[in-house]
């Protein structure tokens, strides 16, 4: 066998595994879903067709539009509140904590919850925010409230709290990396040029850490968009997210074609967000070497 042929065969054999995996378990299911989205519902199943009815329903029926809008709103609020927690935390970790061991330990403390079951972490908030929960017990005990209240749970607030808690590591990680990559000399150079700490942060540190912020926002928004467990556990009647609706279309509502169409819409939205963020990041890409 010729050397070139052998090399080619090696390359094919290495690549073919992942390639086949992607085809069979990602591409084909997406295509199936895409096909279903044009089918028609006919109780109790559905019939093959090529109609845009499902998409038209999504656009015209305010119910779906509202859920999409709510999902987007919650995703953005979750991203913002994650940012408000993650940025100061990462900043303190990178710039204010001198001891390397302590810094690594605190960073790990942020990451470690990712190893705990997602369900468990979402469920925790039910026990904290519930009417018999930790928060209520504390407020009653301290005399702030006369009786337990149910305003903390089963609404959009509890969903934002839960989702922020769950996704904050995905915001911390890229911001921490971005801040850590900034050479200390660059911050010193700014101060050396007569610029105080606040303006140094606004003019140098913040712009140089933007790639991390964009990556973190993309993670949290996309993850929130696809979440239905938090909605299910702590969301309540007004907490339905797009993923909740899709799940019910494939389940109780037994309307696979509409569910497929909703999935495709969601996929398009998420892909749009990712490509936008990729473009943003590329435009602001900074060579830190």
């Amino acid at each position, binding site marked *: 066998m010729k050397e070139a042929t052998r090399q080619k065969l090696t390359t094919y054999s290495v690549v073919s595994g992942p390639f086949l995996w992607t085809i069979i378990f990602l591409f084909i299911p997406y295509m199936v879903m895409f096909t279903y989205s044009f089918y028609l519902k006919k109780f109790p199943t559905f019939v093959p067709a090529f109609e845009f009815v499902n998409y038209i329903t999504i656009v015209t029926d305010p119910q779906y539009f509202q859920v999409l809008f709510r999902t987007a709103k919650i995703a953005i609020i979750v991203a913002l509140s994650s940012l408000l927690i993650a940025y100061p935390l990462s900043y303190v970790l990178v710039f204010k904590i001198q001891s390397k061991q302590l810094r690594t330990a605190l960073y790990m403390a942020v990451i470690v919850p990712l190893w705990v079951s997602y369900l468990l972490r979402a469920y925790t908030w039910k026990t904290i925010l519930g009417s018999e929960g930790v928060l209520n017990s504390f407020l009653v005990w301290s005399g702030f409230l006369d009786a337990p209240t149910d305003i903390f749970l089963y609404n959009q607030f509890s969903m934002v709290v839960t989702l922020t808690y769950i996704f904050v590591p995905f915001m911390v990680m890229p911001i921490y990396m971005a801040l850590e990559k900034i050479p200390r*000399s*660059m911050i010193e150079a700014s*101060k*050396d040029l007569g*610029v105080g700490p606040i303006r140094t942060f606004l*003019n140098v540190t913040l712009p*140089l850490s933007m790639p991390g912020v964009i990556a973190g926002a993309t993670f949290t928004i996309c993850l929130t968009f696809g979440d239905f467990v938090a909605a299910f556990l702590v969301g309540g009647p007004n907490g339905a997210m797009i993923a909740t609706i899709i799940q019910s279309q494939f389940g109780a509502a037994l309307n696979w074609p509409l569910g497929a169409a909703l999935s495709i819409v969601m996929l398009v939205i998420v892909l749009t967000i990712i490509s936008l963020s990729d473009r943003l990041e590329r435009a*602001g890409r*900074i*060579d830190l070497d």
Partner: protein
Amino acid sequence: MTNIIEIQNVSKTYPGAIRAVDDLSLNVKEGEFVTFLGPSGCGKTTTLRMIAGFEMPTAGRIYLAGEDVTDLPPYERKVNTVFQDYALFPHMSIRENVGYGLKVAGMPKSEIAPAVEETLSTVGLLDKADARPGNLSGGQKQRVALARALVRKPKVLLLDEPLSALDAKLREAMQVELKHLHQKLGITFVFVTHDQKEALVMSDRVIVMERGNIVQSGTPDELYDHPASPYVADFIGNSNRLYGKVVAADTDQVEVQVGPHKIRSTPGQSRFSVNEDVLVTIRPEKVRILNQGEDPGDCFTLTGKVQDILFHGSSCRVEVEIEPGTLFDVDVQLALALNASNLPASGDDVVLAMNSEIVSVFRLSEDTVR
């Protein structure tokens, strides 16, 4: 001339009790080009960073132009730094980098633009004003860093090993350029380097540092010709190191017995006593190989056998065995040697002549090199 920098008994101790700078005092005159020279860990960079304000001294005071700046943050000091890695802002153009300090200070745009352009043309980079740092070569980045520091018209320019990332040719060119820039601008330069050649070429005064303190401070030729310790002799240039015993000592001359040879040293050597063990250092290029039958004149002589001749380009190093097991290096400038056509060959017996003024003698206790 007045002192622009006064450092009084400054110490810097890092957590873990690492004493980077130990009770250092120093004055720098206005307009001087001073270089801190020493190996890594000698405290030179820490001293510079304390002048800039990036490190706070554990003890002692620092004055800039008569004002006590010890407790001032870097952004309130009238000094600017050129960083080793240049530290240019990657998200700003060259023009924005240079104008950054002025803009934040609130200078009107109409004044920033000419100031930036003037400084950029001083360093010869006006045509790159709108480029990003990522698109510049190392030498160009170096010039931008310089322009950015100079545009604020600092009283003192601090340079932290700014040339160490450049290749040898460019580094030599930048050394000359920095020296000219210093002469042209007339502001004080404080330069940090571990490269002794760089220090000798550029500086008005070189401060050799070791373990957080000053070992010797003087003009490049003072340091070279009269090193204060074996450490300085070893760090700057090359030296032959010979161990011997003092056989005669009077007010201004000592005589040291090294094997079968007697070595004389003249100026200010009254501190030694007879029978003391000493270290003698002699620069290899200050020694002459005598022609056959030539009269040494005022010089004293050593005899030996040539072991090897090493070609160094513009010069040749002749290794002479002056006693069994002891090699003595002599550097011969080839231009001179070829004219006289007196380069010896391996195995020749030679007579080495040297003036007693170029010989330095040290107590063994002063020898921190070994």
